[in-house]
């Protein structure tokens, strides 16, 4: 029994079969990577988990209840939190506010008319957010706005925004895309550090270096179907995978 169970998911866009009978079991506390060439349907699959897309058929069960038909904020409140491919942050607000907002959402639920108290008077939330910024190494910039940050810093900020909610399942969509090697390594270290907290993670990634340093299990997606699912060491030598990626060239 996985914490996330995906059964026979199909999704068509017009004539394009984006996902065909996709099955996935993600074990609690593990890091599950989904890899595959461009256009394989990785992001489509992720979008089906968070309420951005609804599969045509099939089921997505999280912790024993379905995620299908839930609104994005309800899925988040259930504990499924996503880091986007291009960092989605509140660029006009300060870093601290960026992290306090999800902390409030976690504590107060999807709506609370808290219009009479000062933001600063919520000490526990503030401390939690400051602590999280420290953990991702952005504590010094907490009063700056996030619009002028580098992409790597934005990504780390978004990670802090997700982690402050103590998610059950964290979805990472190409967490190192467009990053320098140094930034990539820093992100891997960060993800390993937070790995100890028992957060289940699904990682979509192109960078094999990242995948093989993080993942416990790997599913390979090609043309909308899962062609292989196994532990990393067995994926490396798998011929089907090499076929799917480079038409036979070695990884």
């Amino acid at each position, binding site marked *: 029994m996985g914490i996330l169970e995906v059964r026979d998911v199909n999704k068509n866009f017009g004539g394009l079969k984006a996902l065909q009978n996709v099955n996935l079991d993600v074990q609690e506390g593990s890091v599950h990577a989904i890899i595959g060439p461009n256009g394989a349907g990785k992001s489509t699959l992720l979008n089906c988990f*968070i309420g951005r897309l609804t599969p045509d058929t099939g089921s997505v069960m999280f912790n024993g209840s379905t995620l299908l038909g839930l*609104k*994005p*904020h309800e899925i*988040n*409140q259930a504990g499924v*939190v*996503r880091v*986007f491919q291009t960092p*989605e*942050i*509140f*660029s*006009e*607000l300060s870093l601290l*506010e960026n992290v*306090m*907002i*999800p902390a*409030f*959402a*976690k504590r*107060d*639920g*999807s*709506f*609370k*008319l*808290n*219009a*009479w*108290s*000062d*933001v600063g008077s*919520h000490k526990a939330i503030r401390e939690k957010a400051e602590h999280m910024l420290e953990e991702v190494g952005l504590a010094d910039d907490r*009063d*700056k*706005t996030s*619009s002028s940050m580098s992409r790597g810093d934005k990504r780390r900020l978004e990670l802090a*925004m997700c982690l402050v*909610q103590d998610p059950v399942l964290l979805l990472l969509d190409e967490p190192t895309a467009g990053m320098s090697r140094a930034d990539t390594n820093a992100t891997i270290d960060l993800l390993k550090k937070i790995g100890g907290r028992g957060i289940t993670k699904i990682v979509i990634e192109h960078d094999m270096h990242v995948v093989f340093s993080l993942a416990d299990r790997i599913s390979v997606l090609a043309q909308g179907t899962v062609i292989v699912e196994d532990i990393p060491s067995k994926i490396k030598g798998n011929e089907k995978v090499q076929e799917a990626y480079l038409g036979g060239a070695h990884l």
Partner: protein
Amino acid sequence: MLTLFTKSSEKSDLLLLALFAIVVFAMPIWLAPFGAAYPDLMQRFAIFGIFATGFNILFGLTGYLSFGHAAFLGVGSYTAVWTFKLLGMNPIPAIISAVVVAGLFALVIGFISLRRSGIYFSILTLAFAQMCYNLAYSVLTPITNGETGLRVLQDDIRLFDAPTVGEGAPLISHIGGIEMQGMPGFYFCAVLLIVMVGVAMRIFRSPFGMMLKAVKTNQTRLNYTGVNTRPYTLAAFVISGMYAGLAGSLMCVIDPLAGAERMQWTASGEVVLMTILGGVGTIIGPIIGAALIKYFENIFSAFNDQTLDGIFSFLPEPLKEGVVNVTSLFVGDGWNLSLGILFVLIVVFLPGGVTEGLNRTGKFILRRFGIGRDPENEEKTSPAPGE
């Protein structure tokens, strides 16, 4: 002092509010040199200040541009006059009922309009406001008295007035015998302006206000952060509708007459201009914008060729005639032209409105005299040009 004009000051809200209260109550003194210290105009400064402050809670924080807020102004006015007619000339019940009814209207209109965002939201609010206008102007004549306008009559019920006010007593709103006209009327509106600015400050500084700012910055992210944005925007819409209802009722407190023209789309546009002119998203900006527009309306529309002759009398005769002929286009009935030019200049050169101008001037002075140099603060207070 400078923090009064910035988007977010740290603490000492009460001090700022006290400062603001002093400035407002001293208006009869410091406005005198500008020829604006008469009660009629100052009342309007306060009333439209409340209207624009409320509008800014929606537009400034969430970025949702309502083009129909005059509807709530009108609803507030009609409710106030009806309260006068039924309960008597005390302004307190009139204000309370106007705020409640305007809030209910905002709840319904907001619930439907907020299903869309951007230009579609604006058009929906505009459509609703025009429907309200037409209802008031013709369809609901028994309630609104159509184009004549709704006023309080001697033979109205006025439940609580009857024993104290005799036949033929003037139908003017009053508390404890003080008639809400002239300076008392101004002070009544001024107190409410200060209270409502205080409320707005608290909202800006609250977690609720922070969520509204997040809606403006990245609504998608907020949804995926576990926040249901719809009730937040709806609450902001209702609160700003209640501010408008309060402003509408105050118009009737100082002059118990409600007309449909108050709901027309030009009135909705005016509050947008006020907010942008003063500075969107700042506490004090919309009030400055409201005062500027009302000042222009009053002062420039009162100018005529004789006054212009007087102003330019130092010029030689032929030149003077030319100057007067040209400038007369921009005053009197043409005061809107002056306002238009001012608006264009501000939007092009000061996208942050008058408050941005004040901020820049303040910083320039500070730098000039080498006090309070703080590069980090500078970055924070000046919004990017393209904003």
